[in-house]
């Protein structure tokens, strides 16, 4: 199916976990540790979906999201954060889904599959 996903997450262990889980589910996955790095990768490669943390150093998730959407309007974005408090805003930012960080990888994989229609 060759869908390509970019995981943007400053916590290295979480980044590796998500990349492992999504690869295991059959996706082509890249990682970035902050928004700036994400935009650089986004310029070089085509991605179908981005999993985005909000609280990150260098460039936070909200700004990153706006810049990503400037580059590619139809990219699917899942906000993935430890904070429940942004939940009311994510649609206005242009994201497609909002997940609170949890140990349920099934939830994450299902949401990715749902958005990518696979």
């Amino acid at each position, binding site marked *: 199916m060759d869908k390509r996903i970019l995981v943007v997450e400053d916590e290295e262990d979480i980044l590796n*976990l*998500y990349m492992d889980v999504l690869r295991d589910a059959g996706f082509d996955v890249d990682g970035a540790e902050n928004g700036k790095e994400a935009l650089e990768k986004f310029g070089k490669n085509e991605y179908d979906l981005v999993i985005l943390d909000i609280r990150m150093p260098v460039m936070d998730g909200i700004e990153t999201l706006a810049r990503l959407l400037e580059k590619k309007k139809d990219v699917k974005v899942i906000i993935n954060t*430890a904070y429940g408090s942004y939940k009311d805003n994510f649609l206005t930012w242009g994201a497609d889904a909002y997940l609170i*960080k*949890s*140990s*349920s990888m099934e939830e994450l994989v299902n949401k990715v599959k749902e958005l990518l229609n696979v």
Partner: protein
Amino acid sequence: MDIEFEKLWRISGELHLSLAPEEALCKILTALTAGEGLAFNRAFLYENKGGVLSLRMKIGAETEEEAYRVWEEISKRPHGLEDLLKSCEEKTFDLEPSRIVEISMDNVPDGFFDDGPVKIEKPEELPDAFKRVIDYLPAAIVPLRGENHPLGVIIVDNKFNRDPITETDIRTLELYAALASNVIERTILFEKLQKKQDELEKAYRELQEYHNRVLKLEKFSALGEIASTFIHELRTPITIVGGYSELLYRSKDLPPTLLPKVETILKTARRMETIIKNLSEYIKSPEPDIKKLKVKVFLEYLCSLLDIEIRRKNIELKLHVEEDIEFYGDPSLLEHAFLNILRNSIEALKDGGIIQVECRMENGNVLFLFKDNGPGIPPEMLKNLYIPFHTTKMQGLGLGLAITKKIILLHNGRIEVESEQGKGTTVSVYLPQRGGGKNG
């Protein structure tokens, strides 16, 4: 007239020292009856209370014998007028119910209060309104007038020595009426002022109480901050542990012997997630959902929840509810608060013991008592009982009593802990019966 002026001058000096109504009225009447004063036998003061003149105070003997006895006693003592008036400062007054006589102002002749004192010598001269209250003639009726309204009436006579009431007496009474009115009006103003001051003081106390309550709650929003940081800090490591164990659990490469072990890790991570989720629920929704609760039913239910724990630890749980009290509170929050208290007792009773739960009404509050006969709490610990994350236990966050206190405060209640080492601990929770939240 000079002598009369001098008398009035002396009396006036004394009267103006009194601000308390009873004391001032006593002085007014004493000066009227004192030999050195205006020297009448009896003086009655009727006060205007909302259109009714009612007897407020009376000075003078009941019978002739009493009158002469009193006069003789007074003449033996070397007291002057000022001393006599000063004695009013220590007196207490109350009228026997039979003496409370009232005159409706409607029956008082028009313009009565605009004129000066009147001398009544014959029964037919007596206005109807005063017929019931005047039992001896001649008498003088002295209207007292404030700035814009009648203050009352003084009635004087010489029932026992039968002296006449002279024109000089009437003129002196006219001046005296002005003085007395002035003094009475001042006491009324003073009373009003005092009442306002009491109201202000009460309002101030209430404000202070409210301020303290707000301060306390503010501390708990600080707790909320800490807990919320805590929750977010924990979410990441739990996600990693749970995520990887889930990944392993699904992996085809995992040897079957390791499967139950990985499953245990996964379950544990999920459990941790539930704990922090519950905690975040607590700090997120502090508005209690108030319902009417029956103490007995509620406490029996709580005790039933602890059944297994107490039996395993050989603890006897005694429930004593004096009467079936009803109150308003948030059942789930209070369950949480009370279970925290009871679980602390259970933990303290390592070698078994007795926990007593009591409930009774106290000053309009519902008082819950949780007593154990455990080892007690060391004094240095007692100080830090409600400080979040302050714990000596191997397990737990040290949030138990902090959250309990927060819940009790949300119900406008209070919690007190008394502990004696070697004897046990008593936790008292006071909740207002009508509940505390917005819905209460």
